[in-house]
């Protein structure tokens, strides 16, 4: 008797557990009524903005939104999309209930949504505002099919290496300016008993590998080839790609240069790679964009004194300047959305944001003085010098399946390359096969 009742309970439990398996389909986000009512000062208008920022980044963005609220009288609600923006927005678009404005982490996603017809083109005065403040490359980046949709609201500068000055002084090396010097400096550091690099080649953070590749490729093959490769107009089996991989193997191919060897590197997450250098002093250099400052501030090291940056050494003729960045798009009609887009494109928003720190923009009219932290000042100087050669992160321009998925596409191919650095041809073939599948 007791057994049977118990079994009944167990079976019921099993059925409950399994019923979840059937529901693997769609789900949609909550609903909320936001109807822009227009009107001169936008009073009474509620605008919903979705972005992936959390923590300090979210707090800063909220302050920028506050400035907009004060200026126009509109009310802005912030919604966090979580790390996977498409997983959040996709179902909401399908349900016909997108936020008014969304900040997309990749232009590739913007193109995808634009082709789906999920985006609203920018009004003329917003386009004019973009034209005033940004160089044509960035304007082009925010366009799809000849129409302007997006504004780069926030950029990440990706052509830098972070280093520990203490380790450099001890080994007697200077921040290198060219790739050959970097390899030599790494050798000297190793001679001195310091592991030169930590590499975040874990499957969830292999984007660092694509960034290494892009810096070397832009530098060696030049901006034109870079643009072609980003559009998959030249194949990944191209000799320029092979040359870049061979160059990278000068560092990736030496397990002694990487903290913990290949076994550890291929499982290291990005935040771990930063703490290994600046928290645990296990290596001298780590790759990371300007945003790594946030990770460094979790250790005892101080940005600017214990943690410094140098420009990514040039492997060819072009000094590389790679930017990542978030693109703001309007997803609903109405004056509120367009006004907010206009505000985000203006130097006004940029100045507020720059004063809060952790921010960089290719907006020409935000003066270097507006930036509160010294590293950002150094970087904005570098960025403005590179001028027209600056490029957007290639992997973020590619379809997400190729350029932005853990364990797949370019991420995994380059991660495999770290494990087998002599297999340049095989890596190229794999990259091309994955790209051919994704670019359709």
């Amino acid at each position, binding site marked *: 008797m007791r057994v049977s009742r118990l079994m009944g309970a167990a079976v019921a439990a099993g*059925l409950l557990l399994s019923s979840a*398996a059937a529901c693997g389909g769609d789900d949609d986000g909550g609903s909320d009524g936001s109807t822009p009512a227009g009107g001169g000062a936008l009073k009474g208008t509620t605008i919903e903005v979705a972005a992936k920022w959390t923590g300090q980044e979210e707090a800063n963005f909220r302050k920028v939104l506050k400035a907009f609220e004060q200026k126009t009288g509109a009310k802005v609600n912030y919604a966090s999309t979580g790390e996977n923006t498409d997983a959040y927005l996709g179902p909401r678009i399908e349900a016909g209930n997108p936020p008014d404005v969304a900040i997309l982490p990749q232009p590739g996603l913007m193109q995808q949504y634009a082709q789906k017809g999920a985006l609203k083109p920018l009004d003329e005065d917003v386009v004019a505002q973009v034209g005033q403040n940004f160089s044509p490359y960035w304007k082009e980046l925010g366009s799809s099919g000849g129409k302007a949709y997006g504004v780069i609201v926030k950029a990440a500068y990706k052509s830098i290496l972070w280093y520990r000055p203490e380790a450099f002084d001890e080994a007697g090396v200077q921040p290198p300016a060219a790739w050959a010097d970097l390899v030599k400096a790494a050798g000297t550091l190793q001679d001195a*008993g310091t592991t030169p690099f930590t590499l975040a080649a874990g499957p969830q953070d292999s984007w660092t590998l694509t960034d290494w590749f892009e810096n070397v490729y832009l530098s060696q093959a030049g901006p034109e080839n870079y643009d072609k490769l980003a559009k998959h107009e030249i194949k990944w089996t191209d000799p320029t790609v092979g040359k870049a991989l061979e160059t990278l193997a000068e560092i990736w191919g030496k397990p002694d240069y990487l903290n913990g060897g290949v076994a550890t590197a291929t499982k290291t997450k990005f935040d771990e790679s930063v703490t290994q250098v600046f928290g645990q002093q296990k290596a001298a250099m780590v790759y990371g964009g300007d945003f790594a400052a946030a990770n460094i501030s979790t250790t005892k090291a101080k940005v600017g004194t214990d943690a410094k940056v140098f420009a990514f050494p040039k492997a060819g003729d072009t000094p590389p300047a790679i930017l990542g960045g978030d693109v703001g798009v309007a997803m609903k009609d109405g004056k509120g959305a367009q006004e907010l887009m206009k505000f985000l494109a203006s130097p006004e928003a940029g100045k507020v944001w720059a004063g809060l720190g952790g921010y960089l923009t290719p907006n020409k009219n935000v003066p270097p003085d507006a930036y509160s932290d010294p590293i950002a000042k150094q970087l904005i100087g570098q960025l403005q010098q590179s001028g027209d050669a600056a490029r957007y992160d290639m992997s973020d321009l590619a379809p997400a399946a190729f350029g932005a*998925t853990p364990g797949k596409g370019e991420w995994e191919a380059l991660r495999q390359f770290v494990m087998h650095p002599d297999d340049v041809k095989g890596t190229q073939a794999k990259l091309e096969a994955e790209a051919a599948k994704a670019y359709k």
Partner: protein
Amino acid sequence: MKARNEEVPPAATAGGAAAVDVPAARRPGARRGRERLTPPSWLAMAFLLPALLLLGFLVVYPIVYSVIRSFFDASGDGFVGADNYTGIFKGHNNLVAVRNTAIWVVVAPTIVTIVGLVFAVLTERIRWATVFKLVVFMPMAISFLASGVIFRLVYQMDPDKGVANAALVAIHDTFAQGTTYPGAGPRNGGDAPVREDGGAVVTVNSYGPGQSALVPLLKVKQQYLPKDAKPAAQPPAAKPGQLTGTVWFDFTRGGGGQQNTPNAGEVGLPGVKVEAVRDGKVVAKATTGDDGTFTMKKVPDGTYTIRLPKDNFTAAYRGAEWLGSTLITPAIIGSYLWVWSGFAMVLIAAGLAAIPRDALEAARVDGATEWQVFRRVTIPLLAPVLMVVMVTLVINVMKVFDLVYIIGGGDPNANVLALQMWTVSFGGGNDQGAGSAIAVLLFVLVLPAMLFNVRRLRQERK
């Protein structure tokens, strides 16, 4: 017994539409001749309707739509036939996901049931049974995501962080002594007087008795430099029949200093084993002192290469590569075991308590050993419970997602179908057709186990 009949509707609600139809269909014919104690069937239907609608809307419709969606491409417009289904079994990464799911389904429920059974039987005999059960069951109270995060830390490669490797290293080091200078070796590039030779370091030149050798080493990690190391000294003057030398860390802080001679500020490397070798034969041995110098006595005439054997440099044991391509799935199954063994234990222990004592007593009186009692009486009587636990776990394992997602972190070697389903449709793949196909496949695979459980439930009723 009336009370047990009343249980039907709630259980059926959890089970699906099939179980609901049966009593509803039988009822009218059976009741007609009797005195009307139950409401008319139309009223029953009216009461059931909200539940049926809800079921249809939340369970039946999504299943049907998923099946339909699985025959269309990523955009949802083009009909692709069975391509999405064949696609599951194409390509290396997909096959790995299928293979891993198979491993999971075979291995995980079996181990969890066995461990649960062992715990259940053992807790019958100990005094603090409740406390023990509570502790073993505790992981069930933690969310899988948190368990995943915990085990990600446990399996960290660095023994300073990962408990698993810390334990392995501790055990290993009690048996084998760590080596002195892992990673040390000759200078990168340049013409050094020493070179690497299969893990060992050998001098380029040869030396005979009465001579002194300089053996500069680099790449010595700070953490391996002994505290008692003294500044490097020039080799002591060699008397006849002696061969002397210095092994030191040839790096001046801040760079500079003359290479390949012991400068001020450079330290000797104590405890390095040194051998004089000719034609592969060791003729003399020595160990360096605190200032890095060594003296070999009674060296026969001739010239020799100075060799620092490999065991001076082999890296210390760092533990297993838990999250490497081969161990990752077993490692995640290990964390699953940690979470679910408590569940199995509690169910089996309850079953155990319900076994009639007299059967066990009778066996013991007949002279059976404890093992025979366990093997021949307890297990057969427990078999139905064990089956239910196992089948429930099979259903659950088929959908394992959180642990793989967190611990694997996207590593394709850890992939399983349920995770693949999410990655393909939302996590970057953006192909909900292919995702639906995997969902339907999983559903089909789960069905037999569910039918088994439903049939069992019905048999229990009779």
